[in-house]
């Protein structure tokens, strides 16, 4: 029972309270527009979040929602999605929420392939606690908690998701609304866990972190748009390309190696090896960085497998009977 909705129908009555200029506004608009176009019912849609700036997201959606506790959104969403396969369940999280305090829940939700869509707003900083380095901050970053520079090696979220057996992994950028919507569209078509890393600018504590991919001058040199079935090229005139050999990605000049030598992106490849290699092109968005769908492979979902077991058990043993249950290991009658 879908009805035609507009972006306004997906807006809640809550005043949006992110800092002016925050990338979250753009993502919110993209998601609301996308939801209106998707044609699903608001009441069958649930947004679950953890703690952090991004996790205020559910308050602004006219859907069901839970703003939960730090790092636990993937666990809560998993329970909801397993209990209610009829719902469309989305997780909104940040780099600290998903990759630091909630890392365990995230990786296990990925490997189980529970039908949840995880939107990780990566701004490479702790915003809500006012500016500490996060698990995606670059090494050497000076913040309040790392005045001499961070000595932590950061995660690469796409590499992490691929390593966690995710069946769908993508990356996009807050400012590119069309690309964001395309990634949301692909994720929503996917059966099972979908992971989208969204580079999101925090203009207060980590402004211009993604300048290499968003700046007018730099972006055409650095954005590598992954497209399934196409050779991986980039640059203003697609003059650069990517080759993968010995499991390692290499940036090459198309003129030197020829188009035919380039890696042809296969998002549906059973092995995540090439996708992983692509994810290693950039360790942080400071040079040429791929965006798009890294991996999108079919795999049965956790809840479908579980429901099948229930159906099988009910077919073979009949629906449960309490009397039989309590006497299942023997009983006797006292007259």
């Amino acid at each position: 029972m879908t009805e035609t909705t507009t972006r306004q129908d997906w807006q809640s009555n809550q005043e949006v309270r992110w800092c002016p200029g925050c990338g979250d506004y753009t993502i919110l608009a993209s998601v609301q527009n996308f939801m209106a176009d998707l044609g699903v019912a608001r009441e069958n849609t649930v947004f679950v979040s953890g703690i952090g700036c991004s996790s205020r997201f559910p308050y602004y959606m006219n859907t069901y929602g839970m703003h939960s506790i730090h790092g636990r959104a993937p666990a809560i969403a998993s329970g909801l999605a397993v209990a209610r396969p009829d719902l469309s369940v989305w997780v909104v999280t940040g780099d600290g929420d998903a990759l630091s305090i909630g890392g365990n829940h995230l990786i296990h939700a990925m490997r189980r392939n529970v039908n949840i869509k995880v939107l990780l707003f990566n701004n490479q900083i702790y915003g809500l606690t006012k500016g500490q380095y996060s698990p995606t901050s670059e090494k050497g970053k000076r913040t309040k908690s790392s005045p001499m520079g961070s000595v932590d090696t950061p995660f690469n979220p796409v590499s992490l998701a691929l390593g966690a057996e995710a069946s769908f992994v993508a990356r996009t950028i807050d400012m590119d609304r069309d690309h964001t919507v395309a990634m949301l569209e692909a994720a929503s078509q996917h059966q099972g866990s979908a992971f989208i890393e969204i580079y999101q600018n925090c203009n207060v504590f980590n402004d211009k972190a993604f300048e290499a991919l968003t700046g007018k001058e730099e972006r055409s040199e650095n954005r590598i748009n992954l497209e399934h079935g196409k050779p991986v090229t980039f640059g203003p005139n697609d003059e650069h390309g990517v080759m993968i050999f010995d499991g390692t990605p290499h940036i090459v000049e198309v003129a030197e190696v020829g188009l035919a030598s380039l890696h042809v992106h296969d998002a549906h490849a059973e092995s995540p090896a090439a996708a992983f290699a692509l994810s290693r092109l950039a360790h942080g968005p400071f040079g040429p960085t791929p965006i798009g769908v890294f991996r999108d492979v079919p795999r049965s979902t956790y809840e479908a497998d579980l429901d099948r077991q229930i159906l099988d058990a009910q077919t073979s043993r009949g629906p449960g009977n309490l009397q039989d249950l309590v006497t299942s290991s023997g009983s006797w009658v006292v007259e």
Partner: protein
Amino acid sequence: MQLAGARFTEASAIFGNDLSTFPSYPAEIRAPADTLGGVSTFQVHIADRDILTPGDHPDVLVAMNPAALKANLADLQPAGTLVVNTDAFTERRWTKAGYTANPLEDGTLDAFTVLPVPMEELTKKAVEETGLKGRGVLRSKNFLALGVLAWMYGRPVEPTIKWIESKFGSTPEVLAANTNAFKAGYNLGITTEVFRHTYEVKPAKMEPGTYANVTGNQAVAWGIIAAGQAAKLPVFYASYPITPASDILHELARRRNFGVRTFQAEDEIGAAGAALGAAFGGHLAVTGTSGPGLALKSETISLALMTELPMLIVDVQRGGPSTGLPTKTEQSDLLMALYGRHGESPLPVVAVGSPSDAFETTIEAVRIALKYMTPVILLSDGYIANGAEPWRLPDLEALPDISVPFQTELNSPDRYLPYLRDPATLSRPWAIPGTAGLQHRIGGLEKVDGTGAVGYDGPNHELMTDYRERKIAGIADDIPDIEVDGEEGATVLVLGWGSTSSAIHAAVRMVRHQGAKVARAHLRHLNPFPRNLGEVLGSYQKVLVPELNRGQLWRLLRAEYLLDCTRFSKVQGEPFKTGEIRDKILELIEA
């Protein structure tokens, strides 16, 4: 040994004895052989009358090796019977157990009737023709011992043989070996002159009805399934493996045909989170654990409390703190259940009293969770979890209807108010995703009264804190008064909760048998307390509170009622012996 104990118990149950068991095993899966720490025991008490505990002092001890003898001999009844596996009493092995001489020969056992059985030799002979070879052969010796006991106690043979067939049917040589060993043990009893007497324990006179032998974990699992039916909700059980709670997960995982969804989470926090997600989705959400896991779940429980979603948390307590005594019993999580959360976070706490009480108490805990839209902690412990006793089956057709209707329509003229409370229960409505027009957002931030919007306003926070407190406190009007098993003129009341109930009950019987007067009461609801509890306690000169902790209920009673009760504490990883409580009661009466 646990297997042999369980089989003897089943055979006794089928024979119609009343019974009570106390399995106890080391934390290590394959603990070092022949050491005191590696001894696995199974204590079973069978009777032709209504009994309450596994007994303080067994009449018969079967010792499979010197370490088992050393660890348990002190408990054996004076002049009791010892069945000893003589093959195990080599110098190396009795030395390892800490003996300086062979206890079979140095007079250590003079006060007992010793039945020496070369179990290993006999087992080898019995198994010879089955084709079983190597180390597997001696595994059958537990069945030989079981056969000896079956003969001594006149247990029916058929149920055990049938059980061996069903259990080992897929490996014919093991099946044959265990069957042969069992029969050899039984026949040994018949044919040798060593066994001069057998014990005859006739069927007990029990209340008419249909009985099943249950362990606490089994009954909690079944209670959860029954509660789902009584509430007309699908069951979602999320858990992370932990001793001694895992058997609840195992039992529920076998019951897919009831529509039960089990979710083995990545960790304790994930299990609590998944359960909360399922609760938001309108399922009967349960998570089970033991003390360390309850600590990990506490933040999520606070979220359940703030979002006012119904959820059951089962804590099968064990010896703590930290990893503590993971396979031993204790009641030391009571204060954590009541207070182990951040902020002002009251929630109902209900405790299982015995394996046969677990089914009904679990349903009661779920009833409270649903009616009051709150997380509820159900306390069990290792003794209840693994112990077994006959349970008179309730009328399953007459389970109470504990269902709570979901909110399906607006509850104010123009919008849905997720925190508009029922004036009687102070409970908020439960509108689940999928319900058109009632979309709303909940979360851990403080809620504005009624609308559920985020509210940072101080007076509103105080109002909501007060609502949450009064909601839980008000449950006292919805639970029965505490009943006293009293005697005219008794001056001492013994108050217990949880698994101490059986030892307290048995001790009170003994005291009365000796001609003294004493009263007894058992608490199922630990938060809130029954309305009449203060009045009841105040009407006795002395109140004795035996607990397998350092006095946690005792502390609560003093705080709540300004009453100087008497604490009786034991933290040895074991239940109270009846005699310990009896002596303490007599001491108080005489003081």
